[in-house]
């Protein structure tokens, strides 16, 4: 069974569209994360939730809105997509915020905005 899964794996869309990426973990972890990895391979934290509560909210545009319906899911909705949003988005989870050094990563979602 996949520990951290993301859907879709690939997403190609036009500028201005709204899209969502879903993430689910079956590890029983309390904490989940969203990272953006650009073409230069920089992996940057965007958001983190612990027990459905937002604990990290980096400086990202308001067009990005995370939602955590329960501990096992953290979805990312992006409004009015722009060319610069093209990247690979990784979801990750850890047992707790203090266990962030033991993060499990999902396979990534490659978003291409045309």
């Amino acid at each position: 069974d996949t520990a951290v899964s993301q859907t879709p794996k690939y997403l190609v869309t036009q500028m201005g569209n709204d899209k969502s990426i879903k993430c689910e973990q079956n590890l029983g972890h309390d904490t989940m994360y969203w990272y953006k990895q650009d073409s230069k391979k920089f992996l940057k934290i965007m958001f983190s939730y612990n027990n459905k509560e937002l604990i990290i909210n980096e400086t990202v545009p308001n067009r990005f809105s995370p939602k955590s319906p329960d501990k096992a899911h953290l979805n990312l909705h992006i409004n009015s997509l722009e060319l610069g949003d093209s990247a690979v988005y990784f979801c990750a989870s850890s047992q707790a915020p203090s266990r962030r050094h033991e993060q499990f990563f999902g396979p990534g979602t490659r978003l291409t905005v045309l």
Partner: protein
Amino acid sequence: EDKVVQSPLSLVVHEGDTVTLNCSYEVTNFRSLLWYKQEKKAPTFLFMLTSSGIEKKSGRLSSILDKKELFSILNITATQTGDSAVYLCAVDGTSGSRLTFGEGTQLTVNP
């Protein structure tokens, strides 16, 4: 703000060569330094270092941390084509409750 700088950004070697990847950092309230290997998909964990001068080893890979000089190195001996990947370094500091990643080193091992 925590910062991680990796060098070189890319490296091309032949099978059998030994490589050394560098990671320097600035972090408030250092907790640990981590190395990951990223092939096509998600980063996979290699090492976590918390103490200076103690080498972590796994097969042909080894890593050491120097907390005084604020850097770490990752060594790979007798490289194989399967070692081709991006190697990411990250630091964990308590001030931001997050991992801060470096830009990664793209290693290509040619047969």
